[in-house]
């Protein structure tokens, strides 16, 4: 199936405009936080895409270890980079929320701390990928490290249930603490953010593949490249 970039981009823009309108204008005001709670519609999708991207990175690393195809290693790498970027946005927007809700940007809350650990673990993964010269060793060691680093995701996700925390628990097994229009707006924004992630993943994968082809051609001509 041919992927129609421009049509997909139009759908992304339309869905995101609609989702932003719902988040900033249409969604009802929250009782205790007022309009500041709308950060929730930015912070939660960023955190969701971070988890999604790192989960896809993990799956790609597992498939790479079983099939040993370079394409999966590239997917793992670019998805982890996107996960790290979305994780950074989630941390920063979470800090803005924390300052508005709790009076300080950083409180060493279990969710903040475990997400920071996650962020550091994946910064390590990217550093590792860019520090090993040999392509096969880089892919193999990176895949193993990626699988180990993924343990920080359940730690971050479950931290608000495992320890006492300031972080609000919106959806628990027993109850949902926001109204139906808020849930609809949240899901719309989760879908909008996921669509952007899929697009960025595809473009970043193409960039990474082209970079490898260019490196290979330069190497054939006798020049120095990143991995040999």
């Amino acid at each position, binding site marked *: 199936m041919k992927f129609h970039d421009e049509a997909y981009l139009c759908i992304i823009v339309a869905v995101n405009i609609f989702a932003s309108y719902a988040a900033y204008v249409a969604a009802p005001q929250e009782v205790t936080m007022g309009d500041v709670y709308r950060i929730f519609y930015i912070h939660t999708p960023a955190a969701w895409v971070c988890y999604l991207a790192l989960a896809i990175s993990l799956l790609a690393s597992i498939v790479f270890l079983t099939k040993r195809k370079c394409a999966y290693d590239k997917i793992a790498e670019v998805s982890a980079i996107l996960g790290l970027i979305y994780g950074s946005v989630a941390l920063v*927007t979470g800090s803005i929320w924390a300052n508005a809700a709790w009076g300080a940007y950083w409180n060493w809350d279990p969710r903040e701390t475990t997400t920071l650990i996650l962020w550091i673990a994946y910064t390590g993964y990217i550093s590792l990928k860019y520090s090993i010269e040999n392509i096969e060793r880089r892919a193999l060691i990176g895949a193993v490290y990626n699988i180990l680093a993924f343990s920080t995701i359940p730690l971050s996700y479950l931290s608000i249930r495992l320890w006492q925390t300031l972080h609000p628990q919106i959806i628990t097994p027993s109850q949902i603490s926001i109204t139906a229009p808020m849930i609809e707006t949240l899901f719309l924004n989760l879908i909008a953010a996921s669509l952007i992630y899929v697009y960025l993943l595809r473009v970043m994968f193409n*960039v990474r593949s082209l970079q490898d082809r260019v490196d290979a051609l330069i190497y054939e001509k006798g020049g120095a490249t990143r991995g040999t």
Partner: protein
Amino acid sequence: MEPEVFLASTIYWISILAIGIWLSRRLSSLRQKLADLEAEGKSDEN
């Protein structure tokens, strides 16, 4: 719009736009570089 919401949304959208623009520029520069290298390779063969 509350200043905190404005700040958070600016950070989010600028990050996404910056990655998108950077990737798009990188993609076109790599395509150009690849075309140049392939053309160079063909002229070497001749």
